[in-house]
């Protein structure tokens, strides 16, 4: 049946993608676009996609009927509309790029000219949300409070507006992605220094907003159909207070510190606002909430699928993009089934019985001289999502998932010269600064006063720090089953416990198993067990006493995903992973996916037979291996994250499918690899490997002096690989290499000769070509 609230059924629908991945627009739009195409194709519509990003699932041949690898810009889109005889278009599944393109096409009269209908939210409503002045005006019409802001078109206007609103203020560019170019100004000097940069980039409008720094930042994901049925699928609370972009913040779902009154106040306003704006489909509304009263401000509405909606989909199991596409076609929410239970309706609000935690991943270390502080502009390149029964369990998992070489909440990992400053002016290491401060005995009140993180979160972190210290006190002694159980419930990994108690991961695992402390599998079912779920969307937790589902007896494979997007590993690994799943399914295997990146298609629960949304670690894979007894594990689709544990899994008796773990090791371990080249008589630069920092300097001299190329083992795309021009460089880089690849510490290799660009430097003779290595360097995305 076709949606009854669309007057005429379209035939040929154009979907706009989001183009190249960039900061603020990444894999999540591949996920939402893919779901939309699926939803449209189910209706028998001919789908045409424009997206120049070849690494995406949506552009692979099994999805859209036709794909144009063209830029998502008005010129090309118009050409495609004509050529493909398009009669309907969706602009809300391709991020800001698609939305802006849609607005431009509408303004140019293209849609009218060719009779193209915009499915879902009307462009007029999009303009209301994007143009700040109109937005505030629309909210005023229904007495909803928005942040006081003024749109300015010149430097003088900005100065005058700052005078009226009062410092501190946020300067922000209109129509910008990920808070690009925005900054908080505390003083008039800050304003003056920001001004030239803002207007120099040719922006037509600059917004001056009151700064609500320290307020809670809360988001709701809202869905509305054309018949005005409206629900909020999920609410999320930023652990970091307002002032830090939501893409830079640690986010939890559902909100943890809102009471019923606050929760419902914001929910009611969300529904009122979305109805007034006339959005059809999905949108996201962000609030600032005063931590000391019921005062609030609406910060913004995103009239499209966003990074937050991808997160909300994965956090709740509610397929937002799919539902939004169906609503755009005129379906009513109660007509659609709940995709997880298949027996209840899509018109409901998921009840979670777990905590979801999102942590962003930054790659700021890759850039020299870049500001490491985080603020109102987005810098993170990826994110991870973890699921646990408590905030501590989820947060510790997430901090490990971002794969920066930390074992959860670790107060010792980073050194802070001025901890108070670090708390006050957050960098990407702020959680570790919080842990350090609490470890050093700073009170929760003090940390709160500096960081403005809610005391609830801080006391949960403090509990974890305390337990970590208790573990350290046990160093050398065997842990009691009770302490070990508590540590596992608090989210400590076997490795983390081993490190703190001065033993090995294997010993901790043995102890755990002897005491019957095993994780259980819990289902994400959208209704907190009120109705049975038909879908195997799972996570592991130590808080459960029983498994929700039993493993099947079918022949199955476990596919490991690639984890967080980062520079050098992004949506292409998701493509690999999904393709592997589809191939395995075709061969009759049951497929299980282990991955934790919410921005991917592989973590869509209907891609595989079951999805385990959890850490990709030796510990977890072994647990799953023993529970599920699959035919084998596919590691080759998971990039570096999966590769790094292959040899250990192999040694522990796990069957690795594809390239043998010894061969993987031979390629990844630089010493073995260079040794192999020597054995085969293949030319390569002079090299020596070392396990010690102290030796490295002597070796550098023996290779003929600086510059030398330093390359650690088991790392991604040249992470921590560099050319050292002098002794000091070498020392610094080797220290960092151990951070990036702690598993295979200082097995660094020194190659004398050319630098990365292959140019000759100094008096050293080049001894080979580094072309092969250069090829492995990828740009972002």
């Amino acid at each position, binding site marked *: 049946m076709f949606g009854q609230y669309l007057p005429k059924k379209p035939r040929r629908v154009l979907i706009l993608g989001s183009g190249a991945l960039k900061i603020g627009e990444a894999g999540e739009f591949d996920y939402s676009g893919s779901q939309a195409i699926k939803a449209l194709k189910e209706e028998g519509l001919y789908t045409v996609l424009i997206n120049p990003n070849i690494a995406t699932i949506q552009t692979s041949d099994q999805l859209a009927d036709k794909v144009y690898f063209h830029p998502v810009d008005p010129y090309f889109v118009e050409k495609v509309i004509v050529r493909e005889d398009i009669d309907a278009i969706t602009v809300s599944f391709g991020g800001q790029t698609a939305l802006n393109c849609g607005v431009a096409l509408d303004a140019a009269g293209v849609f009218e000219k060719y009779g193209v209908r915009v499915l879902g939210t009307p462009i007029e409503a999009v303009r209301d949300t994007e143009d700040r002045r109109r937005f505030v005006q629309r909210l005023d019409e229904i007495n909803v409070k928005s942040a006081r802001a003024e749109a300015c078109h010149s430097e003088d206007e900005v100065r005058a507006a700052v005078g009226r609103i009062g410092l501190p203020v946020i300067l922000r560019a209109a129509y910008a992605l990920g808070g690009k170019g925005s900054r908080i100004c505390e003083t008039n000097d800050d304003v003056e220094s920001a001004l030239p940069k803002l207007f120099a980039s040719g922006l037509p409008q600059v917004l001056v907003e009151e700064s609500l720094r320290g307020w809670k930042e809360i988001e709701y994901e809202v869905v509305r159909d054309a*018949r*005005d*049925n409206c*629900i909020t699928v999920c609410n999320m609370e930023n652990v970091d207070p307002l002032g830090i972009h939501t893409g830079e913040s640690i986010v939890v779902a*559902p*909100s*943890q*510190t*809102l*009471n*019923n*009154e606050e*929760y*419902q106040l914001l*929910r*009611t306003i969300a*529904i009122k606002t979305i109805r007034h704006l006339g959005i059809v489909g999905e949108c996201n509304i962000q609030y600032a909430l005063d*931590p*000391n*009263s019921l005062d609030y401000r609406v910060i913004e509405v995103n009239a499209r699928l966003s990074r937050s909606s991808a997160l909300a989909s994965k956090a709740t199991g509610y397929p937002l993009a799919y539902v939004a596409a169906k609503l755009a076609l005129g379906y*009513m*929410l*109660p007509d659609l089934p709940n995709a997880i239970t298949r*027996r*209840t*309706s899509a*018109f*409901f*609000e*998921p*009840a*979670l*019985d*777990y*905590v979801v935690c999102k942590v962003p991943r930054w790659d700021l270390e890759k850039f020299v001289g870049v500001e490491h502080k985080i603020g109102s502009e987005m810098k993170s390149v990826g994110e991870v999502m973890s699921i646990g*029964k*408590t*905030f501590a369990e989820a947060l510790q998992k997430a901090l490990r998932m971002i794969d920066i070489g930390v074992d959860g909440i670790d107060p010792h990992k980073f050194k802070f010269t001025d901890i108070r400053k670090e708390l006050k002016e957050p960098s990407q290491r702020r959680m570790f600064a919080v842990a350090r401060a609490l470890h050093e005995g700073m009170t*929760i009140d003090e940390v709160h006063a500096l960081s403005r993180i*809610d*005391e*609830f979160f801080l*006391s*949960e972190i403090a*509990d974890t720090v305390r337990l970590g210290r208790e573990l350290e006190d046990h160093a050398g002694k065997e842990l009691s089953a009770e302490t070990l159980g508590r540590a596992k419930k608090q989210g400590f990994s076997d490795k983390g416990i081993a490190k703190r108690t001065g033993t090995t991961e294997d010993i901790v695992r043995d102890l755990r198993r002897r005491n019957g402390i095993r994780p259980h599998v*819990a289902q994400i079912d959208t*209704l*907190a*067990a*009120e*109705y*049975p779920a038909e879908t195997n969307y799972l996570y592991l937790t130590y*808080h*459960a*006493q*029983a498994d*929700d589902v039993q493993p099947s007896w079918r022949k199955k494979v476990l596919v490991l995903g690639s984890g967080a997007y980062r520079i050098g590993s992004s949506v292409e690994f998701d493509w690999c992973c999904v393709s592997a799943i589809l191939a395995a399914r075709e061969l009759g295997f049951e497929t299980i996916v282990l991955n934790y990146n919410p921005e991917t298609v592989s973590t869509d629960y209907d891609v595989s037979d079951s999805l385990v949304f959890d850490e990709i670690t030796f510990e977890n894979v072994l647990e799953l291996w023993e529970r599920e007894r699959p035919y084998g594990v596919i590691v080759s689709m998971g990039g570096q994250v999966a590769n790094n544990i292959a040899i250990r899994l192999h040694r522990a008796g796990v069957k690795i499918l594809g390239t043998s773990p010894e061969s993987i090791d031979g390629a990844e371990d630089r010493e073995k690899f260079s040794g192999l080249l020597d054995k085969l008589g293949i030319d390569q630069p002079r090299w020596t490997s070392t396990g010690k920092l102290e030796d490295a300097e002597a070796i550098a001299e023996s290779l003929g002096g600086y510059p030398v190329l330093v390359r650690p083992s088991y790392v991604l795309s040249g992470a921590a690989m560099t050319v050292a021009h002098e002794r000091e460089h070498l020392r610094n880089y080797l220290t960092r290499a151990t951070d990036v690849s702690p598993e295979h510490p200082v097995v660094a290799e020194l190659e004398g000769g050319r630098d990365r660009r292959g140019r000759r430097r100094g008096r050293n003779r080049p001894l080979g070509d580094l072309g092969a290595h250069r090829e492995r360097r990828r740009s972002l995305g």
Partner: protein
Amino acid sequence: MQAMKLLLADGTVYEGRSFGAAREVSGEVVFNTGMSGYVETLTDPSYKGQILVLTYPLQGNYGVPAPRKIEPLAELRDKYESGRVQVQGLVVLRHSPNPSHYDNVRTLGQWLASEGVPAIECVDTRALTRKLREHGTVEGFLVDQKTSPVDARAKTEHVEMARVCAMTTVPDVIRYEGGPLKILLVDTGAKDSIVRSIVARGASVIRVPFHKDLRPYLKECDGVLLSNGPGDPKDMLSTVEQLKTAVFPSGKPIFGVCMGNQLLGLAAGGNTVKLKYGHRSQNQPVQDLLTRRCYVTSQNHGYVVDDESLPAEWEPWFVNVNDGSNEGIRCRTRPWASVQFHPEAAPGPEDAAFLFDDFLRLVGSTRV
């Protein structure tokens, strides 16, 4: 922290730690899937006599606000739904000992202990909920770790379910001034938010305990509101009788909520049945059968009106989108209607609050 266990009538044991009062109790074990609003939920009189399982794993995050001031009684300016914690006992996965909120003065555990209500944490509430879903609600015993199953039945305190309404209704008539329209609230264990909802809309409320003769109050009021309440509606046949003999003949507009829906259904000549495990959550979708509009509602009930049993002059008004059960009834010929969900929310979504506006508009237009 003292070890404690939840013992189900079928012999299943869930071990955990005590964080409330040191008492041993028994009662029907029910679960609620709401993620926020434990203060409102725990003081909801409809939970009288039941052991409540909250499926959201973290409870007590924002603490508990200051206790209710006794005077003046006619002002209900707080988040409590009644003067005390109504549940027999509480079961959660984790109780937050360090709450944070500007309104917070005490932890959830301290509050429960001060009210003499036992509570247990570290229970796998999901496994427990699945059990309740599959087997229906069962009797449970919240007891000390060492108590044997035989002793549990003998020595735990329980509430006589036939008397729960009498225990939760107000002791005597209370009048709340709000405006010229007067609404008679038949209190079978009413949530205070129902009173707040009416008063906030500019009408006065005469709150009368259900066992009083309603006739004297009917004369001075313009409309009748039937409240929610705990237990089986069939234990309330005297009130059903009052509806038939006194309220119906008066011809005044009637609006019922939750148990009010069941009582109105019984008075209309219909029947009520017990659901396997009830609806207790803040995300129940209901559809208005006239307008086809849908609302997300807050619910708390174990019994439901049987649509099939309704006489010809009555019809279903709302239906549950998930399981098709009745969510409201209306009379085709008279201004009498009721809903099974809670339009006053607290806790939960306020989507259906307009029903109070509609009711008062109706009352205003039929006023003589």
